[in-house]
Structure formats: C-alpha cells, structure tokens
C-alpha cells in the first residue's frame, strides 16, 4: 500500500528531504509544503535525487501552490514538480493509505 509523504523543511538548511527521498518507493507521493517547497528549486542540493525519484522510481512529486506563491517561487520551480492546492493535498491524502509527515 502506498504512502503520501509530506516534507516541510528547506533542503538547503536541513536533511529532512534527503531522509524522505531515501524511503519513498514506487507508487508513493511526495508533497513539499511550507519551507519544504524550496526543494522544488532546480538549485536545491536534492534536485537530481528528486528528478530520479520521479523518472526512475515512479514517485509522484508535488508542491503546495499557496506556499510556492508566498515565497515567490511559482516561476522558478523544476518542470518535474507538479503543483497542487489544498484540495489536491486532501485528495492525495485520501488516495494513499497512510500519510508520513517529515519535519
């Protein structure tokens, strides 16, 4: 059964996103929220690992739109990151059996 992972820490400051990436498996979803949305930048130290997660390991990657917008990141994120609003966040939490919060 698949898991929705949420990450709320900047990968420039903390190892939280890296820890999550190592545990994600095919069919899981990873949602970047709060300061976690800095992980959607192509300059993030985790960018290549996230790209591989999406392309090779079949994990679905999302970032929360209001959190991107607040930080001025809408036009800066990598094109392999999908954007969702709170309705999307809710839908992801219903589509996956469990939710793991990385903070």
């Amino acid at each position, binding site marked *: 059964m698949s898991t929705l992972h949420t990450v*709320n820490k900047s990968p420039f400051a903390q190892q939280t996103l890296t820890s999550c990436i190592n545990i994600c498996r095919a069919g899981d979803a990873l949602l970047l929220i*709060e300061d976690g949305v800095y992980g959607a930048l192509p300059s993030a130290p985790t960018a290549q690992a996230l790209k591989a997660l999406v392309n090779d390991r079949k994990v679905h990657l999302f970032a929360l739109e209001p959190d991107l917008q607040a930080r001025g990141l809408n036009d800066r994120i990598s094109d392999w990151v999908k954007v969702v609003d*709170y*309705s999307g*966040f809710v839908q992801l*939490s219903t589509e996956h059996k*469990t*939710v793991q*919060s990385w*903070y």
Partner: protein
Amino acid sequence: MKFALAIYAAPFSVQASQTALHFAQTLLEQGHEVIRVFFYQDGVHTGNQLATPPQDEQDITQAWRALARAHQLDVVVCIATALKRGILNEEEAQRYQQPASNLAPEFTLSGLGQWVEAVVHADRVVTFGA
C-alpha cells in the same frame, strides 16, 4: 473519509499551525469527517484564549474556535503537555491552585487516550509537525 489530525506546532511561531487549519477547512468543505483534532507538544498553545494578535495578522486560535463551533469539531488539547506549558482550564487551575485559567471553551483538556481512540477509528491520520 474519517480523518484524525495531530498538531504539534505552536500558532504564531511556525507555519504548520496555519497549514493544519487550512487542511481541516478543506476536508470539511469536501464533505470529509474530522473525528478529532489533537493538539500535542507546542500545538497546545493553540487553545490559549488570551492570544491577542495584531489586527493585521490572522488569529489562529479564533479561527480554530470558529471552525470547531461551526462543525461541532472535537478539538482536544493534551492535558500533560498543556499543563507543563501553562495552558489550563478552570478545573485544572483549581486543582493546582493556579490564579487563572486560559483554555478557550471550545477546546477539551484530555489525555493521550483520546488520541489513541481517534487513531483507531480514523481512516487517515495526518500529523502537522513544527
């Protein structure tokens, strides 16, 4: 679906408290059931009715109170971590001979058993960490 939410983050200090509020509002709009909201660790500060934010900032405590009233939400503040952090209802204030209480009336002060019960009955548990 039946959701149980755990909130560990202080309002007014980190964004997680706003995220949880927005998530809960969206759940209810979409017809999901929020069977319990459990405030733990620094999340217990959310129940402090003395919070007096400036007018141009969101009053997160008031927003939770309004949501709880509108949807008869079961919003529980963990008694052990709340007492430690100075969040008390009248009963606990009297028990510990404290000069005042500060828990907003919409919140219930109770033990971790309430949380375990919610976890058992929920289809989904979502944690909002600090």
